[in-house]
């Protein structure tokens, strides 16, 4: 933000001095590379769409890794939820799907007989955006993780 202000001031001074010096006047300013011409691509390329199958495997393996053999514990559950969602997000980012924004939401529940219902609605472009969700169950823990991939035009 500060840089922007400096650029504006220097250009104003250069204009006052004279047009002959304006070109050389640009060198003290940070050299701005010319922007690449726009490509007008509004869809991911072939093979660049959201990789639902790979993401599903990542979710299943991460949940199993973190929760197999464990019993629900009130003091540890919030930590598990954070660790799982951060780990899944990092691994999905490593898949390097270009121009995709990633959201991961993990819910860890104690199995105590409570009734529960989850619903979701998304307002997006179904041709480019997608989601994957998976469950993990054992005697006391019920874990649900959902990963959303949203394309940035």
């Amino acid at each position: 933000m500060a840089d922007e202000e400096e650029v504006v001031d220097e250009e104003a001074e250069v204009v006052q001095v004279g047009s002959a010096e304006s070109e050389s006047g640009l060198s003290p300013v940070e050299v701005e590379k010319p922007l690449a011409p726009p490509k007008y691509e509004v869809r991911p390329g072939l093979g660049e769409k959201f990789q639902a199958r790979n993401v599903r495997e990542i979710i299943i393996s991460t949940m199993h890794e973190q929760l197999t053999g464990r019993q629900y514990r009130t003091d540890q559950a919030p930590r598990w939820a954070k660790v799982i969602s951060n780990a899944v997000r990092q691994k999905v980012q490593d898949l390097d799907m270009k121009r995709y924004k990633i959201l991961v939401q993990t819910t860890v529940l104690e199995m105590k007989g409570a009734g529960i219902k989850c619903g979701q609605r998304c307002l997006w472009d179904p041709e480019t955006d997608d989601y994957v969700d998976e469950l993990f169950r054992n005697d006391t823990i019920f874990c649900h993780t959902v990963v959303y991939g949203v394309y940035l035009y």
Partner: protein
Amino acid sequence: MEVKECNDLAEENQFIVDDVSKIIKEAIENSIGGTAYQHNKVNQWTSAVVESCLSQLTKLEKPYKYIVTCTIMQKNGAGLHTASSCFWDNNTDGSCTVRWENKTMYCIVSVFGLGI
């Protein structure tokens, strides 16, 4: 470069948590305000909350994609923890989670807004 940054700061390109939080609270109050947990009605309730949230969000007429999730859970002593991790642009994107409860149930609604 300058033009892009101005666009990011314009009001219509920012996720305003207060407005969204108000919308969510209204949607919950209107759908499940005075009711007690009923297993056969939960389906309708989650749909109602989520659809009402989404329709109010679209009325804001912002260049955003939205994801709304709603969880309704009966109160019986069980524990519930939710975490989310996001890879996005902090200037334009945001999330808002509202936790609501009455004597028989908990309702947790999360809205994620992603700028186009």
